[in-house]
Structures are given as structure tokens and as C-alpha cells.
């Protein structure tokens, strides 16, 4: 299954396979709002807010970068989640 990602920060859309992370979909398309990162849930560079859609977290995220409260609000590391539907996301900004 391939889902459509609406990337509000990059102002574009790209496909994501259900078996790949949102980060990998961004890198593979070359169009995502995140261009690099550790892909291991450790560095926090790929922090995003998911505003619409279903997803599954398949790896642990460093709590140095995403708190439990943030995770409940849909704030995640793109390398640690896979899409379960079409997704709308934006790069996380602290302000």
C-alpha cells in the first residue's frame, strides 16, 4: 500500500509506502521537509507534527527530543513512524 503525504512545511505531496518510515519516504522522494537525520530516533532532527492521518510508531524515540505528552499530541520523530493512511504533517517548530 502507498499513501500520500501532504507536507505543509515543504508545501508539496509525496508518496510513502506502508512498510517505510515517513523519514525514509521524505528522503526517497527528495521533496520532504527533512533532508537528513540519524534515522534511529536518537538525534531529534526529524521532529514533526502529524495533524491528520493514522500512523504506527515502530521504534523508540529519544525522550530527550519527544516527551510523552508531545507524543500524545501527534508530535513524533519521522524516522520512528510508518503511515497507516494518508498523512498531513509539518516540521515541528518550538515557537
Amino acid at each position, binding site marked *: 500500500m502507498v499513501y500520500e503525504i501532504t507536507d505543509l512545511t515543504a508545501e508539496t505531496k509525496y508518496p510513502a509506502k506502508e512498510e517505510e518510515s515517513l523519514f525514509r519516504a521524505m528522503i526517497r522522494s527528495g521533496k520532504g521537509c527533512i533532508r537528513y537525520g540519524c534515522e*534511529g530516533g*536518537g538525534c531529534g532532527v526529524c521532529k514533526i507534527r502529524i495533524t491528520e492521518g493514522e500512523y504506527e510508531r515502530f521504534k523508540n524515540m529519544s525522550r*530527550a527530543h519527544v516527551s510523552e505528552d508531545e507524543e500524545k499530541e501527534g508530535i513524533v520523530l519521522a524516522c520512528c513512524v510508518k503511515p497507516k493512511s494518508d498523512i498531513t504533517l509539518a516540521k515541528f517548530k518550538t515557537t
Partner: protein
Amino acid sequence: MAISKTIRPGLIQLRVVNLEESVAFYRDILGLDVVGQTSDGRVMLKTYDEFDHHSVVLRHAPESGFDYVAFKVVDDKTLEELKEATEAFGYPVDVASDEQPGYGKRYGFTLCTGHRIELYAEVAQAEKIPMLVNPDPWVEMPRGMKAQRFDHLLLYGPNIAEAERYFKEVLGMFAPEFCNTPDGKRFAVWLTGGNKAHDIAFVEYERPNTIHHHAFYLEDWNAIGNAADLIGKYRVKRDVGPTRHAITRGQTIYFWEPSGNRIETYAGGYAAYPDNPQREWTIDEIGRGLFYYEGELFPSFLEIVT
């Protein structure tokens, strides 16, 4: 006899958010052997070519990153002298209380950069060691990237000029290369206690206690190519390389393990001698110094730490 009072960085403990995936990566991709587990679930590993009980410990934690690095010193007398000298330098010293099977007494302290550094003299020999009589290059066929040893690490933190002074004045290391900012402040320094081009390096950084990478030694440029093939095949997240450093002249690839700690596989590098003149990099040329073939810096390399 080592050139300085330290023989090598012999032990590193890292925090990982995804323990099982990280252990599998060190074992199957890097090619380390799992030595065992501590009673609190940390996993001990070593390379096929190391003699000591273990060299890498992975601790499952909510955040990835650096717990400590421990330097093996030449003997017990030196260890006690270094404890005194470390306290005289201004860092309070404790005796490490966490279990490291096979290891003797470890003294530890917090460096100005926020990192815990430990010193030890005694460690038991591992069960699986390289051959000693009529030795083959290896006993069991090496796996994966065929990492030969834990080689060095690069730490990021504040006030590296003081850290450099500690490693030189107390541990007796020397700095074959350095890089200053235009106003003459240390930006980066590479330090060694022997003939390796570096045992430890520091980059000036506002946030304390962060690690840029830890490195494993590979045999040669062919082994770097083999490592690159494994990165492609197993979809490992690559950072930079294969390429060459002008600094230390080593050949290299950087990538991340499954908990996001950056790893370098490193081969070659010059032999460092304490009586050789020191080499200097100006910051406007540091891109070429780090990545000689590309001649430029990469934002991921500068900005990502754990």
C-alpha cells in the same frame, strides 16, 4: 611501553533507545561478538581482534547518547598517580560503582565538557582472543564490516581548551592536529596517547556531554568498500563517505546505528609521534580537512549529535 601513560581508549558505554536492534547491528553489521549481559541488562561486546574482556557496552535508556569512555593506563601505580593528578587538576574523582565484568578498579570524573571519563589498569582477557602461536589473521571468519578494534571517539562540549590541557598535562597525551577559530580559540583538537593519529577528539559546542561519533578500525580501503556495500544492502543510514580525511589522513565512512548514535569505520591514518611538529587547520579550510575528496562540509555532520 606506551608513549604516554595511557594505552588506549578501551571501553565505551553508550545509551541506546532500541536495544535489540542496536545489538543486532553491532553484531551482524559491524561484526562484533556479544560477550554477555550485565545483571542489569546492559550488553557487552568486543571485536574479533581485541584481547580485553569487552570494549563496548550498550545500555537501554530513554535517550540515546554517551555514558562514559574509559582509558586503559599502563599499570596500577600509574592509575593511582593519575587519580591524584586528576584531583590536583581540579576534577573530583570517584570509584566507578557500576558493574563492568572483567574490569578492575575504575576511577571516574566529569570533564569540563560534561563527559564522564574513566581510567583503569586491570582488565581480564576475553575468552575469544586472537591466536598467539603461529597466528592466523583471525580465528573465526570475521562478519559484516569486520571491525578490528574500538579505535577513537569525538566528543562535543564546552571549553575544549581545558579538556585538551587535562589530556596533555595529566594523561601525557599530545595533539597532532588542531583547528582554531579566526580569533584564536580552539574549535577542534585531535589527541593521542600513542602512535595512532587520534585516541579522542573534541569539538567546541555549547551543549555539554554530547557525542559526535565513536569509531571502529577496519583493515584497509577495501574493507571500507565492503562496509559501504553493507550500508547499501541493509539500508543503513549513511552520513558521509566513503572518503578520506586530510586530518589524520584516515579513510572513512560515517553512518548511524539503529538508536541514532553515529559510528565511523576508519582505516589507515598516519603514525603520530610526539616530537613531530603539530599540524594546524584554519577554519575556512576545515571542510577539506574533514572530507578531502568532497572539499566541503555537510550540515548533517556538523549538526547531529546524541
